[in-house]
């Protein structure tokens, strides 16, 4: 086959077809592997429940961050703020948060005294929402520090509740995975920031998160 300049297009067509087939094969392999991994990760907690009578496996851990609006909004806000701040914080914040959250979890497990955790969590929602609503472009060190400090409080709450009796590892995997996925949801929402209307939506979302944080803080202060 020749184009209008008389050039042979056959090698190009072959190359593009091969590239398409390769992409399809990679997609199939990725899907297969993801299925296998999901099978391994999801099957283990179910097995672990056998006979314990407790519900502390993967599913319980996964649901935990989703069951409290304070956690949920803070996690989404971390992703959203990261997306708003762009590289490198778009991936740095979701990388820092789980690691620091785990350290907070250990502090919770050993009952290390901390300022009231409910206050810290409520403040995290308020501050992170405020950062997004105010379109605050914090420097890397400041954004990372803010997220790390709040990660300690969220991890502390999880650590206090981490069950040791029934598949605690499955529980940990569940809540870390759910936390990470909430970050991704936040990044997804933040992706619309490139459009003018999207920018408004992101800031309004931040404002709503901040308002919710104010309400959580109000409750945490005992009113």
């Amino acid at each position, binding site marked *: 086959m020749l184009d209008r300049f008389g050039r042979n297009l056959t090698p190009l067509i072959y190359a593009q077809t091969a590239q398409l087939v390769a992409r399809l094969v*990679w997609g199939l*392999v*990725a899907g*297969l*592997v*993801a299925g*296998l*991994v999901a*099978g*391994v*990760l999801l*099957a*283990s*907690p179910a*097995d*672990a429940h056998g006979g*314990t009578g*407790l519900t*502390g496996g993967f599913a319980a851990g996964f649901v935990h961050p989703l*069951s*409290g609006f*304070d956690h949920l909004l803070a996690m989404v806000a971390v992703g959203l703020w990261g997306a708003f701040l762009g590289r490198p914080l*778009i*991936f740095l914040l*979701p*990388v*820092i948060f*789980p*690691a620091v*959250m*785990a350290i907070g*979890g*250990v502090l919770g*497990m*050993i*009952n290390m005294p901390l300022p009231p*955790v*409910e206050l810290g*969590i409520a403040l995290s929602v308020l501050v992170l929402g405020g950062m997004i609503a105010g379109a605050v472009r914090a420097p890397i060190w400041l954004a990372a520090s803010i997220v790390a400090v709040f990660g300690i409080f969220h991890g502390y*709450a999880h*650590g*206090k*509740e*981490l*069950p*040791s*009796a*029934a*598949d*605690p*590892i*499955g529980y*940990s*995997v569940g809540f*870390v*995975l759910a*936390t*990470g996925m909430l*970050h*991704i949801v936040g990044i997804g929402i933040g992706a619309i920031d490139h459009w003018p209307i999207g920018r408004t939506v992101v800031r309004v979302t931040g404002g709503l998160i901040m308002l919710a944080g104010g309400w959580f803080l109000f409750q945490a202060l005992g009113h």
Partner: protein
Amino acid sequence: MRGGALPAALLFAALAFALAFAPRRVLFAAVIAASLAAIACSLMPLPEIWREWVFAGCWASVAITAAMVHLPGGVGSPLSIVLAINAGIWAGATLAIAGLPLDLLRALPVLLLVLPAAWLAQGRGAIAIKVIASWLIAVAILAAALALVPTPGYAPDHMQ
């Protein structure tokens, strides 16, 4: 309750992510090395007294291996093989001490994550791998601490 295929599967997942940043020519050798080491160690009779050390080694390996995704320039060939053998040893040891014979068959396929991960690592997907690796580090820290600390269990929490 701990053991089963999950610790080994998480270690293999961490290895797969680390190998995604390794030279392509070493991937096959590393996967084979990890598999052989895991099979060999899972068949070894380990004394029960080693249980805590084996789990500690497994979780430390998960954290260290997952952290390798941040190594500037990726993981070199010799380091890839070292990481693979190390992962195989600890995965096999956890299965030998707290797993069933079939658990190895459930954990080993996780190594295949290296295929999509290596593909992703070529482009902007590298970020996704680094984020997921940080989740593995978090799980490893928590799981390692669980062995050292009696947790309060199902006490009412701040949301109740």
